[in-house]
């Protein structure tokens, strides 16, 4: 436990097989990954390669067939307070206001609402949702709903934030804005973030490290470092380093999808 304490997230030889009526489906095979405390990594891979399954395993929503996951050194045996998750859709509860939605983990985990309230309001302001606290989700745009979902995942102050294609349902412009906001959140909070995406652009813009996964059964086939200094801007994406990195990832992803 002492030697792994530097790792916020540690995945060892993870395998997952779904038993279905049509026979077993091997979703993940031999996935090993260490994520440093405070690191931002992206996982990119073809559709159906087991990315969402990986998120469910990390969040303790289902059990792996083999291997082990540790968050801050503690083996994952079920849901943990050390991790916060953001799904592809915001999954806001329509009967709760934005503030109440954001405070849902506080209610469920029985954290004192008064102390959490300050943090919630501060985070809401940080993502540009100040003034929308008493609105209902259906009164907000998709981008604003997803911002609220990110705040909700952070409100109980977990070490690790894992996001599963959080911008997939949004338009290109909103995606860019939200990427910039996620970068700012990350810079200001120092969280460890695992970002699952389909977009090479987003992965490169945001990450210290980009992990490429193969088609099913999902394996890690390549890994790219991105030491480009922060804060990054979208103009930086045109720089030679980042442009060539994107091409490399593109090629690797094409090979991964072909197999």
């Amino acid at each position, binding site marked *: 436990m002492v030697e792994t304490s530097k790792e916020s997230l540690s995945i060892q030889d993870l395998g997952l097989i779904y038993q279905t009526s049509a026979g077993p489906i091997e979703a993940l095979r031999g996935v090993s990954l260490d994520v440093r405390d405070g690191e931002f990594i992206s996982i990119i891979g073809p559709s159906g390669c087991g990315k969402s399954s990986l998120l*469910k395993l990390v*969040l*303790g*929503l289902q059990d792996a067939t083999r291997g082990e996951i540790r968050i801050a050194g503690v083996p994952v045996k*079920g*849901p*943990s*307070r050390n*991790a916060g*998750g953001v*799904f592809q*859709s*915001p*999954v*806001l*509860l*329509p*009967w709760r206001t934005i503030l109440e939605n954001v405070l*849902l*983990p506080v*209610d*469920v*985990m029985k954290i004192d609402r008064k102390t959490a309230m300050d943090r919630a309001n501060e985070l809401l302001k940080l993502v540009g949702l100040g003034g929308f606290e008493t609105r*209902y*989700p*259906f009164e*907000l745009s998709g981008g604003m*709903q997803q911002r609220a979902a990110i705040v909700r995942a952070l409100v*109980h102050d977990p070490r690790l934030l894992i996001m599963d294609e959080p911008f997939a349902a949004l338009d290109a412009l909103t995606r860019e804005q939200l990427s910039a906001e996620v970068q700012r959140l990350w810079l200001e909070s120092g969280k460890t973030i695992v970002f699952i995406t389909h977009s090479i652009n987003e992965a490169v813009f945001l990450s210290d490290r980009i992990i490429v996964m193969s088609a099913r059964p999902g394996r890690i086939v390549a890994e790219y470092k991105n030491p480009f200094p922060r804060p990054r801007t979208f103009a930086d994406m045109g720089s030679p380093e980042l442009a060539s990195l994107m091409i490399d990832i593109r090629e690797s992803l094409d090979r991964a999808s072909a197999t």
Partner: protein
Amino acid sequence: MSTMIDDSAPPEAALRPLASSRFGRIGEALGYLAGLLLFWEAVVYLLDVPPYVFPAPRAVATSLWQGLSSGTFFYHLGVTLFEVLIGFVAGSLIGLLLGIGMVTVPFLNRVLYPYVIAIQTVPKVAIAPLMIVWFGFGVQSKIILVAMACMFPVLVNTIAGLRSTDSDRLSLVRAMCGSRLQVLRYVQLPSALPYIFAGLNTGVVLAIIGAIVGEFVGARVGIGVLILQANFALDLATVFALLVVLSATGVLLNGAMHLVERRVCFWSGRSSK
């Protein structure tokens, strides 16, 4: 709501927004009702139909006025309403709790489901005499009949609602270390509310039927008793007047349910995925 008036349109079109407004629609409905009553009165008068076969609207109105102004209708309606409301609340609560129990505890589901179906398939009219024997001519037997009538739709809809909760919502609360009970409280029950209200809306109607059936089979007071008495006396005008009272009550209860539903499920039907 379209309230645009196009100057170039013919005059009939300019009247449209009025007819489509709320008052316009009510006025329209009242107009049709007046027409129907007139036609009815004319047929009874022209064909000289005897009042013990089919009463004229004016005779019904007179009976209705007498019943209401003397307080007789209100007294009996009060008793029937009491049976309906108490039975409805009790039956709905039992249906709701049973539904929650059967969804959360698979064992309960296996044990209870056959009995619930068995009880439901027996017509309430067939059980009514038994209830009178066991619980007497007073309100208790009616309350039990009403409760049995409205329990089932609430139960079935509660089960359907709880089971159809979006799996992402379940994962959400489970990922927050939520217990089974917290998942139920924070997402399953609220998500099921539109279903539960569908059950309650059906339940209200069945509750009135249950109370009247109970009063037909054996009671001393209640609208059902008045209907039977008037029927025996061939006083069909009073029977019709009582039917008017009953349907007005049904419409009001139904309206009240919808009002509550709109307050509680204000979010229903608005997408926020």
